[in-house]
């Protein structure tokens, strides 16, 4: 049974992505007790799966390394992975949360030596590469995974593979008897940092994501460029592994569209501008990127990055919402549409098309506590004064990493205000 020490002076943070980690750390480094609950087996969330950040083109896992070191060094934070908040009751200053913890089938004895992975035969689609490749059914989510502990995929439980894994582990770390458990955690304040998910690209039918292998999402493209990714960082197109040098970036894939997401997802323009530089980095002179856009939203200081990319001869811009994508026999994708500046019809062939996929708050679909008000896009709105719930990061709005962290830091303060009030009342 998982033991968690928590009181109504504890801050419960839901979501272990960069927003949740930040909120938890900032609060903990102010001396507060924090329980950080993450649904997946590892912290890091979506940013851990990005290759580079705009506009500096630095590496997200560089910041993750620092944040993980902060967490390892901080005794105020208790991390629960594979855990989901299923219900919350109570009021500001006195909540109790029901948390479901899924079995990992690997206990804290695990040294991450990897013998179990060597032993099992079964493979499962790798969610950390958006299913672009497979991984062993006994796996460490990724090189930066924290806790650094293996996971036995539920699909192999009850199969010979499970027993092989158990036999292979010298440290008694494989526990096939693990069951889902439900625990209750007290908390004075709750920070909801459940982040975002990519809009279902298959729903954008004219782009044929579900029909054409060489139409991929911007998130999948991050994995293709990343040395930790399925191609070891080589930009190869899925259909035939051909080097993808001539790449189309389709903006507003789902965003700013009343048939899909009504809001603008903010990050996609900068993300595509950034990704054109991956293409440049990979193929140099041979690189060719074309950005199909409605408005380029390189907001505030990011403008200079846009100007830099505009000067890059390998990148061209076309003001047009692509009408339709087809794929020819060679596997090339053909983009059909009209350049609206003036009036120029095009049918352009590219090696691959990248959909700058829209941002959907993860709260959409999850039944969130009544106290949290979500707008019609599913984003959490700033909560009422009498509430002890605070949204943070992309659960509250379409934000880039910088703004998400800012929002989480603010959320941490509001949570601390609740805790301090409780403390004063009890002192």
């Amino acid at each position, binding site marked *: 049974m998982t033991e968690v020490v928590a009181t109504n002076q504890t801050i419960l943070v839901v979501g272990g992505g960069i927003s949740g980690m930040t909120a938890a750390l900032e609060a903990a480094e102010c001396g507060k007790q924090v329980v950080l609950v993450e649904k997946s087996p590892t912290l890091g969330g979506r940013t851990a799966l990005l290759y580079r950040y705009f506009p500096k083109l630095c590496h997200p896992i560089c910041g993750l390394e620092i944040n993980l070191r902060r967490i390892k060094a901080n005794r105020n934070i208790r991390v629960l992975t594979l855990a989901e908040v299923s219900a919350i009751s109570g009021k500001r200053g006195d909540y109790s949360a029901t948390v479901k913890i899924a079995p990992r089938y690997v206990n804290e004895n695990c040294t991450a030596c990897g013998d179990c992975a060597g032993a099992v035969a079964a493979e499962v689609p790798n969610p950390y590469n958006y299913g672009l490749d497979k991984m062993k059914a006994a796996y460490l989510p990724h090189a930066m995974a924290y806790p650094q502990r293996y996971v036995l995929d539920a699909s192999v439980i009850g199969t010979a593979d499970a027993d092989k894994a158990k036999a292979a582990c010298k440290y008694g770390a494989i526990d096939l008897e693990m069951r889902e458990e439900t625990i209750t955690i007290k908390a004075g304040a709750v920070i909801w940092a459940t982040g975002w998910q990519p809009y279902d690209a298959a729903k954008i039918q004219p782009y044929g994501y579900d029909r054409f292998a060489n139409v991929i999402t911007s998130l999948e493209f991050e994995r293709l460029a990343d040395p930790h990714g399925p191609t070891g960082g080589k930009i190869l197109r899925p259909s035939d592994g051909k080097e993808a040098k001539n790449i189309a970036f389709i903006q*507003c894939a789902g965003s*700013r*569209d009343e*048939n899909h997401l009504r809001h603008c997802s903010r990050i996609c323009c900068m993300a595509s501008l950034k990704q054109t530089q991956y293409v440049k980095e990979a193929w140099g002179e041979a690189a060719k990127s074309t950005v199909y856009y409605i408005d380029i939203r390189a907001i505030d200081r990011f403008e200079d990055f846009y100007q830099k990319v505009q000067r890059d001869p390998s990148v061209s811009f076309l*003001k047009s919402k692509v*009408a339709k994508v087809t794929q020819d026999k060679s596997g090339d994708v053909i983009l059909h*549409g*009209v350049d*609206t500046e003036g*009036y120029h019809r095009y049918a352009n062939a590219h090696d691959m098309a990248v959909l700058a996929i829209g941002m959907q708050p993860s709260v959409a679909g999850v039944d969130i506590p009544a106290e949290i008000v979500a707008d019609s896009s599913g984003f959490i709105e700033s909560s009422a004064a009498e509430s002890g719930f605070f949204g943070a990061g992309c659960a509250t709005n379409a934000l880039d990493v910088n703004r998400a962290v800012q929002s989480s830091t603010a959320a941490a303060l509001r949570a601390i205000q609740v805790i301090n009030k409780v403390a004063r009342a009890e002192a």
Partner: protein
Amino acid sequence: MGDLNTQMLDKYRNNFLREVEEKVDDGDWVKMCMQCGVCAGSCTFGPDWEHTPQKIFMMIRAGKREEVLTSHSMWLCTSCYNCMVRCPRKLPITHIMHGLASYAHRLGLAPKNQPTRDFSMIFWENCTKTGRVNELKMTISVYFREGFVSGIKKMWTLRNIGRGLFFAKRLNPLELFVSHGCKDKDGLRRALKKADEIEARRRGYAVQPRGYSS
């Protein structure tokens, strides 16, 4: 009908957008366009368009009344609804195109001998005569709209199709004499006449004489 055009000209002076909003079916949607161009790229006869829908919307906002109303473009709409289902702002583009065409025609600004316009008129008159379309009569009037000789020529080139359809029992000279129709075609025509009056009332036009209303 040219006078209607002048009426509208001084009524709306330099505000063509407002004119479109008030006179054109679904015209009040024009302002919602965000110029993404997805309609332009989705259009079946797109390559033949001189102005794409999105561009026409911009021209309306820019007050290019003459250019818009005399344009051939709207008349190339096949009603495939591609633009409409893809529009991120859910503009009923197909309807707006029809509305603009209809309005241009009403003001007498539609291009002369615009084949689609002529066909559209023939179709409407044909189907409202008896309440049902008589395909044979309609076809004949379409082919003969530019006069007898060209009509005969067209018929001749298409004779094989005609024969084929005849043997397939899908085209029959009998139609020229015993034609389908509604029993209560007069009631129908009264209703359509009334519809015209209401339309005129709402839009502030003088009622114009129509085949079925005279």
